[in-house]
């Protein structure tokens, strides 16, 4: 600590002092950090319960100093639903990958959103199955190569990438849905703001909150972390635009 200087940014304490297993440059880690900053800032460590299903983030409970449940693949929304219903004054979030939330867990996702379950979805859309070694996800882009689409995703045969934030926005139970990213400091700050807003709306019990992160996977995409930011900008955002898709509280305020 240098004399005459004060700290303007430091690692949040709720992010345990443990090296995360994520690959270099992976936004999974970024989002973990932002989440723990929010928990700290909102002072809700005692009231927060997280749910992490399988996916690269299955070990999230090793890093966050909060109560957590691991969930079976695709079932985080069902698990979070039950926790939130049993403990309605807690802050509950599910933290899910695109394989988890948009493939095997589609039914649980749609129905939790439709029921308006009052927890926060944190949806890490990296367009690939990171954990299992880079297979195609429902959000893999047209032409994108993965281990199970080695010649590029053929949308004639496999369909177009699913836009989950847009889809759940159509459901009455969803209060807030936004797609964010972390490719620049500005976007990362926005991502944090969105996450915080989701938690605040959750606190008011206004409905389901859904934050989709247009995330990266340098390992699965077979590129460097820095290159992954270019891929995001050039390929991902054009198809998965960042922005707010639904904001019921804001609309209500306007009226």
């Amino acid at each position, binding site marked *: 600590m240098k004399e005459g200087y004060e700290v303007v940014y430091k690692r949040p304490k709720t992010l345990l002092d443990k090296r995360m297993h994520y690959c*270099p440059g992976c*936004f999974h880690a970024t989002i973990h950090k932002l989440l723990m900053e929010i928990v700290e800032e909102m002072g809700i460590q005692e009231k927060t319960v997280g749910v992490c299903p399988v996916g690269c983030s299955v070990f999230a409970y090793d890093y966050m100093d909060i109560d957590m449940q691991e969930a079976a693949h695709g079932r985080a929304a069902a698990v979070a639903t039950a926790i939130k219903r049993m403990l309605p004054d807690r802050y509950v979030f599910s933290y899910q990958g695109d394989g988890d939330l948009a493939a095997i867990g589609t039914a649980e996702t749609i129905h939790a959103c439709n029921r308006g379950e009052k927890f926060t979805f944190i949806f890490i859309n990296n367009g690939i199955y990171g954990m299992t070694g880079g297979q195609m996800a429902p959000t893999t882009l047209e032409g994108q190569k993965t281990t199970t689409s080695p010649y590029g995703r053929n949308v004639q045969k496999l369909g177009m990438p699913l836009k989950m934030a847009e889809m759940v926005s159509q459901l009455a139970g969803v209060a807030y849905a936004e797609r964010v990213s972390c490719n620049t400091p500005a976007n990362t700050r926005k991502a944090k703001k969105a996450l915080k807003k989701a938690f605040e709306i959750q606190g008011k019990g206004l409905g389901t909150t859904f934050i989709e992160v247009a995330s990266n996977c340098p390992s699965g995409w077979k590129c460097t972390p820095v290159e992954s930011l270019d891929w995001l900008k050039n390929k991902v955002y054009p198809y998965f635009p960042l922005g707010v898709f639904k904001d019921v509280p804001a609309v209500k305020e306007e009226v």
Partner: protein
Amino acid sequence: MPAKGYVEISMEGCKGCGLCVIHCPSKCLELNTSDTNSYGLHYSYLAKEDVCIACANCAIMCPDAAITVYKKVG
């Protein structure tokens, strides 16, 4: 002129992704390509201490929360 800002980077915590490096507006960070930490990774370090403006962009970008940012008091 003493720098407005200053950063501390955990050498072992850094994974060498370079996201801080490319987003530093003052270009004061670099990856140490001649050395690795115990994980075999080239870590980032404050190469040009005097131009850091304590904007914290690097820290915000760092996935692994390896960076602490300081600002001159007053």
